[in-house]
């Protein structure tokens, strides 16, 4: 028998054992080298930053949403997603007015964004549900991030927020400073009526008095070139298609000729509101009928469901909701629109009436219309 062919000698076993023990011990040390690497904790700040940019600097997009329950069926497009009632038409959230106005948010988009509930209701496709709807449209990514998005408008006591209260110690965070655009409004009071001859120069005593307001859409969208400022910057623009238009008429009693008719009238009613539009290519005014929900009236300080005639004491406010003149409702978004209010007063006398004067022009003149103001705000996004 060969003397050096003893592969299983005790010495071999001893040497092999020592080697294997050392090898096993070192192999168990290897996982400790990998302890410092952790993917998720670096991620949250990046996601928060991205969400902050999407909300503050992007106008959002209307379009199809893949996945249940929408399955990519939608024909919507454009950036006015806040007017769409079905959330399956909203592909991405974004609060900026347009991509050329970063950090300037649209008040209507803000209101719509913060309209949410917890959990999904399959019957309700207007209110957004936390967290899935926001994950699909603002947070993105495969991991189901939880989040809290808060907006504080300086000067208002309320903080708008969506999401859970922050509980973890480890979360990603970003804070953006933004400005929120308000809406414009016009106030026609006794002074305006007097200086422009809305009724005071009428020498005729009439029963039906018509007051006309003009919304020259082409001028509003294109800005005034003759004024000191060119208003084509979307942050200051009055856009009838997506902004709220508010017309306040006050001190109506003082438009009467109180020297002749000292007593309060027997009856004074708002009997009708009619809309006309001079469609392009025509020289006459066409009758248009906006949806019944596009506007509402506040008469004498109280909200009146549109049941006319309604008695008027002193004030009428006409509020058009955002989207009342949007391309979906308005056939010709560059044509001037005339809104006529008809007042019936008995006994017949002077009243707010501009049939002999110019229609009240809702434009960029700060004397006519209080221009949209920008308010400061703080937007905070926390993701975990």
């Amino acid at each position, binding site marked *: 028998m060969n003397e050096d062919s003893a592969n299983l000698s005790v010495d071999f076993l001893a*040497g092999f054992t020592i080697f294997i023990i050392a090898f096993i011990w070192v192999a168990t040390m290897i996982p400790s080298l990998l302890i410092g690497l952790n993917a998720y904790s*670096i991620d949250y700040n990046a996601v928060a930053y991205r969400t902050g940019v999407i909300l503050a600097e992007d106008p959002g997009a209307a379009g199809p949403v893949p996945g249940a329950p929408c399955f990519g069926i939608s024909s919507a497009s454009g950036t006015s997603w806040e007017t769409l009632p079905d959330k399956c038409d909203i592909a991405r959230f974004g609060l900026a007015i347009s991509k050329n106005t970063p950090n300037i948010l649209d008040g209507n988009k803000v209101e719509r964004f913060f309209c949410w509930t917890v959990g999904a209701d399959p019957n309700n496709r207007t209110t957004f549900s936390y967290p899935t709807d926001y994950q699909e449209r603002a947070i993105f990514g495969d991991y189901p991030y939880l989040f809290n998005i808060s907006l*504080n408008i300086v000067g208002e006591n309320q903080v708008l927020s969506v999401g859970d209260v922050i509980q973890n110690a480890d979360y990603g965070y970003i804070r953006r400073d933004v400005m929120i655009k308000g809406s414009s409004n016009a106030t026609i009071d006794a002074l305006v009526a007097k200086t422009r001859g809305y009724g005071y120069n009428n020498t005729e005593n009439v029963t039906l008095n018509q007051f006309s307001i003009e919304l020259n859409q082409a001028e509003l969208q294109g800005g005034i070139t003759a004024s000191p400022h060119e208003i084509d910057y979307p942050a200051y623009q009055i856009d009838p298609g997506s902004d709220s238009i508010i017309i306040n008429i006050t001190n109506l009693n003082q438009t009467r000729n109180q020297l002749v008719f000292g007593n309060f009238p027997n009856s004074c009613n708002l009997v009708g509101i009619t809309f006309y539009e001079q469609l392009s290519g025509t020289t006459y005014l066409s009758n248009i009928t906006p949806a019944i929900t596009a506007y509402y009236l506040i008469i004498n300080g109280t909200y009146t469901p549109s049941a006319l005639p309604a008695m008027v004491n002193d004030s009428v406010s006409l509020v058009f909701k955002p989207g009342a003149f949007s391309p979906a409702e308005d056939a010709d978004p560059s044509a001037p629109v005339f809104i006529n209010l008809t007042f019936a007063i008995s006994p017949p006398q002077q009243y707010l009436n501009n049939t002999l004067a110019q229609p009240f022009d809702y434009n960029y003149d*700060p004397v006519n219309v209080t221009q*949209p103001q920008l308010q400061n705000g703080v937007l905070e996004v926390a993701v975990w």
Partner: protein
Amino acid sequence: MVNTRGQLYTIEGVAAALIILASAYVVVNATSIYTPGDTHISDMQLEVLGSDALVMMNTAPNSTAESPLQTIVEKSDGITFGQMYNNIVNNRTETGQDSIQFMANVSYVKSDEKTVNSTTLLNMTRALVGGEHAVHVSQWVLAKNRYPDSDSLRNRTVLVEVFLWRD
């Protein structure tokens, strides 16, 4: 029968074990794993916040007004700048203010049209002593002003520069 045959195996086994242990020791002592970029994240957050605040100050609140930052630069009004910027940058959605400090100045081109000078500062909440980890943001402003070594009142572009740090 005990003899020295086969001891080579033992010796080689011990030698191999020693090699592995020595290399493991060298490796573990040499590799240092640390989470990168922690300072960069807070820098980025501060930079975004500071720039946003400057952009907001450079936007007029309505179509007829001038932007507040332009008015501040034209009048060299450091006090208004300090109050406004402090307010905007330290505002939060929850109650209580943040504690971000800043130091701001305005850079303009001297009358020789070639060199740049920085004015004495616009305002600061506290002097930079050197231990702070500050970020630098800037904003372009178009304004009319006359600076100490310039002799004409004309339209000029200036750079409002701010250093921001967190206490």
